[in-house]
């Protein structure tokens, strides 16, 4: 399979690999995918509560080169965006930027899901602080 140069670049020099403190009220964590499907993405955003702007974003991905590239690119795009702007990122934007072939489109879908899950988690935390019941849209340990 031939990879685009951008996929290879993100694979070889991934941006923003790492973790943010997941218990921080300003950090949202999205964990999507499943090991048996061959890809799991963890994507985190740290939001400035004053401005609503994403100050930092980190990822860790178990998956193929295109999955790694999709999540790496997503963190790059997230930084400096407001939460609402972040929610407007579409998987098709990622497909276009990385020239993903049709069999790899699911990698971009997963990255979009990860963004949405991270922001949902951040919002849930904020709501919880304000006394609203939490809801979660991502993987979590069974009780």
């Amino acid at each position, binding site marked *: 399979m031939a990879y685009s140069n951008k996929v290879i670049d993100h694979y*070889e020099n991934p941006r923003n690999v790492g973790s943010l403190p997941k218990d921080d009220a300003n950090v949202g964590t999205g964990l999507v995918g499943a090991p048996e*499907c*061959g890809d799991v993405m963890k994507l985190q955003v740290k939001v400035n509560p004053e401005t609503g702007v994403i100050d930092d974003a980190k990822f860790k991905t178990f998956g193929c080169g295109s999955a790694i590239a999709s999540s790496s690119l997503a963190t790059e795009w997230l930084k400096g965006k407001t939460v609402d702007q972040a929610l407007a990122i579409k998987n098709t934007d990622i497909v276009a930027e990385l020239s993903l072939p049709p069999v790899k489109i699911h990698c971009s879908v997963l990255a979009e899901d990860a963004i949405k899950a991270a922001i949902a988690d951040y919002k849930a935390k904020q709501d919880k602080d304000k006394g609203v019941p939490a809801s979660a849209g991502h993987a979590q340990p*069974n009780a």
Partner: protein
Amino acid sequence: MRRPSSCDGAPDEYAWGPSFGRARTAGPKGPALRELKMKLPIYMDYHATTPVDPRVLEAMTPYFTQHFGNAASRNHSFGWEAEEAVEIARKQVADLIGASAKEVIFTSGATESNNLAIKGVAEMYREKGNHIITCVIEHKAVIDTCKKLEKQGARVTYLPVQKDGRISLNELRDAITDKTILITIMTANNEIGVLQPIAEIGAIAKEKGILFHTDAVQAVGKVPVNVNDLKVDMLSLSAHKMYGPKGVGALYVRRRSPRVLLAEQINGGGHERGMRSGTLNVPGIVGLGKAAEICKNEMATEAERLRKLRERLNAALHKNLDELYVNGSMEHRLPHSLNVSFAYVEGESLLMGINDVAVSSGSACTSASLEPSYVLKALGAGDDLAHSSIRFGLGRWTTEEEVDYVVEKLTTVVRRLREMSPLYEMVKEGVDLSKMQWVTH
């Protein structure tokens, strides 16, 4: 799956085999600590195919231009020369597997041999029964053939395998009915290199009066295979897995006790005792014969050399990395074969990181079907480990230096990808991944 580029022009003089790919040394991203004499990319996918041994090529060459006759031309020397060459090759192949020359039918390869054996028996022994026993980790050339026969009314039992990749002889016995006409079980698996208990299966088949076919394409030429010791009635083999050319193979068909009859699947001229019509691929057959002769003479030393290299590879990987799982029995295994799952790292991303090493993976991302390897799934390893598997196939031109390079490179890449893996992080934090509620997609 990474493929090596084709051999550059003429093979090296016999010195030490063909030269693969471009002659370049490791770049700045590779282990640059020492001067590397070997050529990149490194080919370590000898289960997929093997390069033609220069000695084989030399034997074949005259049969393209000089001795180009049709082996079926009975009236002139061109035909006689071709026929003589074919008969020498038939004897060479027979000698490798302990058969007599008349029991060797030349085909286009093991896929055709498997089709001929299975369909040929199903059709010929239809009156006797319609039940075939095979196993879930067979090559698709066997499984798809059985599926086709099922559509035509045959009944097929697909035996499961145990965790070590071998079938259970008790389950085989239990599966046999009075309608069973054929047992077909591979000698060695192409993905995990595990050897099945062929002699024991042969004894059971003989005891029950059932024909026994084995797809031995990965085993012939690598480990001793004797059709009489193993009580095999039919055996498929292929030249390109044993340093011969692509497009030629053979089916061994037993001629006495019992005499196996097959319904031919290709009509037109009655070549190969009527079992396989079509003008013989004389240069290919000469190459197969020569390849068989070399394997017979050199198997013992080659197997020992490769076993040591395989152990070196396996030991070094385990020394450098934790959470590695060898897929399939280590005891009952081809000497040149190793299949390892690197937990928490996805196979395709691993292949991408070792792009100057040609190996293959059971990861879904590397397969056309986007399903992880059905062989590894059948071992009960779990899909996640199937996604993380790499198959190493060592061969005639694999060197110690290459093994060490692959170990070094893999170690670096696995460590890097684990640093990037959320699963590895969670496991290190003490999370039990099996208790997670994953959102499958």
